[in-house]
């Protein structure tokens, strides 16, 4: 088993990556931050991440497509969906397609960290500290 949990974070808003990258890193995860969904997809094809955090509404590729790609690649990877506007339809679709959880904008770094902690928990990483 790996030392650290590996997380891919994708949001086309640059600031999201800029702030959340360090915020997740400092609680002991390895984070790769992407703004461009296509590059992120390439990376997903290269490497199996433990957790993928993705925004749902992005220019060309949307979060559901990322989710589908990840599902194709591995059953293990947990996908957390970030959404700007949470609708029941969207939530249902995401859950049906195998998302781990959803988190609605605006949220705090702690909100995400606790969802990640839950995901880590379900992956079997017990030792994670919720907060630095």
């Amino acid at each position, binding site marked *: 088993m790996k030392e650290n949990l590996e997380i891919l974070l994708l949001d086309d*808003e640059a*600031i*999201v990556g*800029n*702030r*959340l990258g*360090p*915020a997740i890193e400092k609680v002991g995860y390895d984070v790769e931050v992407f703004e461009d969904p296509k590059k992120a997809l390439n990376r997903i094809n290269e490497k199996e991440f433990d957790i993928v955090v993705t925004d749902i*509404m992005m220019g060309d590729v*949307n979060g559901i497509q990322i989710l589908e790609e990840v599902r194709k690649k591995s059953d293990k990877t947990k996908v957390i969906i970030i959404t*700007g*506007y949470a*609708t029941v339809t969207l939530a249902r679709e995401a859950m049906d397609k195998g998302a781990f959880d959803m988190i*609605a*904008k*605006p*949220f*705090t*770094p*702690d909100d995400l960290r606790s969802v990640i902690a839950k995901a880590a928990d379900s992956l079997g990483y017990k030792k994670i500290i919720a907060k*630095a």
Partner: protein
Amino acid sequence: MTNSLEFKSSFINNSEKKPALDTEGRNLLARPRFSLRLHILLLFILFSFLSMAIIIGSVIVINCIQKKISFVQTTERYLFYIEQARRWEKNYFLYDTNLEDAIQITGNAKTLLSQNLKKLMTVLSAEETANMIENLEKYRSLLQELTVLKKNGIVNAGKKHKIETSLRKHGAEMVKVAAALVYKEQNSMNAMLRLIQRIPIYCFAVVLLLTIFLVHFLSKRLIKPFNLLIESTQRIAKGDFSLVPPICRYRGEFTAVEVAINQMLKELKSHELTMVESHKLRAVGTLTAGVAHELNNPLNNIMLTAHAMLEDHNGLSEDELLEMINDLINEADRSRSIVRNLLDFARESESVSEPLDLGMLVSETIKLTLNQAKVSGVKIETQIQPDLPRIRGDKQQLKQVFLNLILNALDAVEKGGNIKINLKKADSPGFLAVQVEDNGCGIPSHILPNIFDPFFTTKGSGKGTGLGLSVSHGIITMHGGQINLETEEGKYTRFTVILPSRNIPADFNKT
């Protein structure tokens, strides 16, 4: 007359009930009054005068003929006397009878002449009349001379012969003149008879012409206003609420209709504005998803940045801190412009007509819907021809039209669909065209005639008001433009909004 008074008084009541009778209405009423009733009255008077003239004319002509007949009889009697006299004269020469009878009958002729002198003068010239009388006198005096000679026995055969020659000459002359007179008078009477035979034909022709004129005139006076009113109502039905122009030059029965229609138009206009306003708020409602998403992004950025600052405020370098503060400011700015853009559209305002850059207006409207499109997974392609002339219109209302069309297109397409928005010069010069085309479900042909009707909707209850296209149509008509529609079921729908442009390039007034 009572009717017209009632009409007038009901009108006054009406205007009292609505003291806010506008200037147009007052101007319409201020025109000189020339009602249809008066028209018809005048026409009847004209007809009565005409028939009276015909009757009087006929009476005069018949009277003339009567006088003519009695005069012809007189001249015939005169001719008869003269001829009789000449017969006695002949008998005298042939059988040497006496001349008393001849003298007596020329006396009768003379009396007849002097009795009818006035009538004679109207037919013959004074010279001719004098000549005639002179001939008669001469003839009579010759007869008397001859009688005297006969009584005294023949003294001078030469003198007698001379008198006889002169007598024959004057007698012949007299008969000739009288016969000519009779002939002339008979001719003139025949001419009169012919005239009176023709009078009915002339009258018929005049009445026919007059009737044709009246039909033409009345139809102009009656049918034209009706046609104009029909035209106006058709125009109103299409959503053009500009006032009805004065139908006739004068104030009449139709003025009341005009004033009433104009009043109705004012109310329709104000209702339309209310409807436009309320529908706008519905449109804003449908935009919520997009706007919420759009607004949540900067809000999220601010939240994350603020939390990052809170968590790490001790360990941050000056540069990092500065970057974060700048992010905060920029994202706050971004939120402000999103809210402003929406409020700019939603704000209740008076309808203002101003010069507008249609390209900018369309882009701003598209911006409002971009996130809605993102939410629905629809791609919006925009193509705006640069350097187009400006248009004149109400910014909010026009935005509302394009918003309606784009939101409709968004409803029509599936996920992954495509909306093309295209602004260019229209085919007809002086007009700009905005096309909103989607590759969605299309519109079934059986509902095509209804889609611009108010409250017509294909969306489920509670989803659509059925006012979007109706309101849009109203707005575009008010701007002097039109909305056209091409569609094929299952393939595409293309709405084209055509608006009149002003001949000043958009960039001209920008600075």
